[in-house]
């Protein structure tokens, strides 16, 4: 892994169209700005990881798990806010 030292407001180019800025440094937080073409997905690593993990959990549902669900459902599914 390439490791570079940067100061506040300095940046790093990745290729020709991606630029990473150090926007703010405060205690142990670093605020990072990312300039990238809109077709490059940018996500916090833990979000992608949480989706990976949730997908794996979801895919392990057994057929039996759904059998008992009928009892949980009222005539029409209940609605509630997330």
């Amino acid at each position, binding site marked *: 892994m390439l490791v570079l030292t940067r100061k506040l407001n300095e940046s790093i180019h990745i290729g020709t169209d991606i630029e990473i800025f150090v926007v703010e440094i405060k205690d142990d937080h670093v605020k990072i700005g990312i300039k990238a073409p809109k077709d490059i997905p940018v996500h916090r690593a833990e979000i992608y990881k949480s989706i990976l993990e949730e*997908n794996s959990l979801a895919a392990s549902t057994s057929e039996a798990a759904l059998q008992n669900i009928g009892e949980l459902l009222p005539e029409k599914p209940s609605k509630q806010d997330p």
Partner: protein
Amino acid sequence: MVKLAERTSTKRIQFTTTRFGQVEIDEANVIRFVDEIPGFPETERFILIPHKEDSPFAWLQSVDAPDVAFVVTDPWLFFENYKPTVNEIDLEKLEVAGGAEDSSDEGWVMLSILTIPKDPKKMTANLKAPVIINTRNNTAKQVILSSEDYTTKHRLFNRS
């Protein structure tokens, strides 16, 4: 309820699944993921199998991996105020136009993947990363919403 219009072509395909045994369907009903589902690079082809008549749930079953199947639902059946904003690139990739407000006649549907633990009362919906299917050409993608309002786990039933 979670059902796509039946399509027909001349080619039928057969494949094996862990949960449903041997399945034979018209190839025109296969849903193709344009990008891999995070965690499942080995499969891009899926079919939608309704759970039961009038059930709000369906199975998104992999054609390529017998043991890979997700339970999915229409998120608005349970979360009527759900307002997912899908980024433009994902919409373009799926050749789906417009915002994610009402999917019924827009040529696409959105589904949420459910996680069902041992106690099904505690099942959750992944509202952070819904699946969008373009119903005109049966392409799909699991998109990640940037909104901080949604997570991968929202309880469907009472939290008590």
